[in-house]
């Protein structure tokens, strides 16, 4: 009995959140059917195309179609490589600059400039260096994702409470212990925030760089479908990108909830005290 009630309550909550989205999708459906626009097909046709394109495979390959493996996998590999590079470099350099003040001041203007250059403007340069290869996409993704991670890591290290650092100093911790038990956890909320911002940027740059020049991948697929005037297929790729974005965001929300539980707890605690 209570299980039914729990299920019901869950449904009601889901409805409270999602009804407007559903209404808007229905409006889209109706308007698109009336208008019979070639470029913007009804949502139902996009969903059909989505299933046909990406989810028509064997159970053995997780129902993912050959098309998925051929076009989505290269994109995801580039995204992972570029984002991974940015995380590794950004965190290491951010920590070094945060701890070593002179180096931070030395590189500060260059970092400000690097951040300000809209990274897509580097596409013409990247293509000269790498040609139409995955290296071009990866380097662009890495460069675009680098700045938020680097700057957030730096801010996280510099923003460590002086009471925290003084306390650590008074304990005469070893460098290793200081790094592992004080510096890294203390800066982690800021570092993870930077990573969360960057995963969104990575997705955007993945698509843009593949639109600009690629021989495979989701962006490439979108361009191909446009040339063939197959718009439901084109939209199904857009829908896939959106779902990836939602998935990444959910993953980070989960990470923050588990790894940064102390952060929320401590914040609530200090608000209660003041």
């Amino acid at each position, binding site marked *: 009995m209570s299980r039914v009630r729990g299920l019901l309550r869950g449904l009601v909550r889901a409805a409270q959140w999602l009804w407007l989205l559903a209404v808007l999708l229905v409006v889209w459906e109706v308007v698109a059917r009336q208008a019979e626009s070639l470029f913007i097909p009804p949502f139902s046709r996009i969903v059909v195309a989505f299933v046909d394109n990406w989810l028509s495979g064997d159970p053995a390959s997780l129902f993912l179609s050959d098309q998925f493996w051929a076009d989505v996998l290269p994109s995801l590999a580039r995204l992972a490589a570029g984002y991974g590079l940015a995380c590794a470099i950004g965190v290491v350099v951010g920590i070094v600059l945060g701890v070593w003040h002179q180096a931070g001041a030395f590189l500060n203007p260059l970092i400000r400039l690097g951040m300000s250059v809209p990274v897509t403007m580097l596409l013409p340069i990247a293509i000269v260096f790498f040609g139409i290869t995955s290296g071009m996409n990866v380097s662009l993704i890495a460069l675009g994702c680098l700045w938020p991670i680097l700057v957030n890591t730096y801010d996280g290290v510099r923003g460590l409470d002086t009471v925290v650092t003084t306390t650590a100093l008074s304990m005469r911790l070893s460098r290793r212990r200081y790094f592992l038990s004080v510096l890294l956890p203390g800066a982690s909320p800021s570092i993870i925030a930077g990573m969360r911002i960057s995963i969104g940027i990575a997705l955007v740059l993945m698509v843009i760089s593949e639109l600009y020049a690629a021989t495979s991948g989701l962006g490439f697929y979108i361009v191909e479908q446009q040339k063939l005037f197959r718009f439901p297929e084109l939209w199904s790729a857009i829908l896939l990108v959106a779902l990836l974005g939602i998935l990444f965001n959910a993953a980070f929300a989960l990470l923050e909830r588990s790894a940064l539980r102390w952060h929320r707890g401590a914040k609530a*605690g*200090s608000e209660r*005290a003041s």
Partner: protein
Amino acid sequence: MTTSDTEGTSPVGATKTSGGPGHAAGLAEPILEAHGVTKSYRSRQGDVLAVRSIDFSVSRGEFVSVVGPSGCGKTTLMMCIAGLLPVTGGSLTFRGQAMTGPQEGVAVVFQDYSRSLFPWLTVEKNVALPLRDRGIPRADIERRVERALEMVNLGHAAGLYPWQLSGGMQQRVAIARGLAVEPEMLIMDEPFASVDAQTRANLEDLLLEIWAETGTTILFVTHDIDEAVYLSDRVVVLSQGPSVVVEDITVRLDRPRHQIDTKQVPLFGELRAEVFGLVMASDRRTSLSGEES
């Protein structure tokens, strides 16, 4: 998720603390000596003198308080003694050796417990942190952490996070962290300034018990004159900044002390009045100087 406060677990009357180890003062060797300690800060307006030629010493096992008007450079002096700030002039020796940075055998308890305990570590791990990577066997670390937490009556809170505890409990964790390293000297910077009066009285008595049990030297910085007189063997009174030692008063009150009885002894009132007068006088004399950072 705050666990209920259990501050009043050790009524003072029930304890059998004998006279504090510090009563041998005068005969015991000095553990800490300050000679002409001077500290100035660089600021945009030029150098600001915070501490001017401080002389005093602390004997092994003594309980010494440092009091002074707010903004007199108490915290600065404490940071110098803890080796956390370099002195600009004069000399500081700990166990006969000149100080260069934080010393082995010294533990510090800060006023702001909510920030000096690391929120990402549990109580247990906070207390264990200063013991790690020092070649102490894991079993020993566990035993010492357990003992330190027992001493502050927080054995049950080992697995909780600091932010799940009340203010008084958090400060007890900070004290336990200091005790876990089994220090020769415990420096405390206004440790009870941010807790309510009831909790404060309980923490004072807990501290006296721990002091009697461990024999650790305690250097206690406070702006509360009652607290200084109540706890200490000696009270060092600082002037308004740039601070100098105005007076070094020996407190000859019997131990164990008692929150009500001790404070009704006429001597307590006299000492209190004396210290109060000194603090007020120095405060009036130089009330133009700036705030302590």
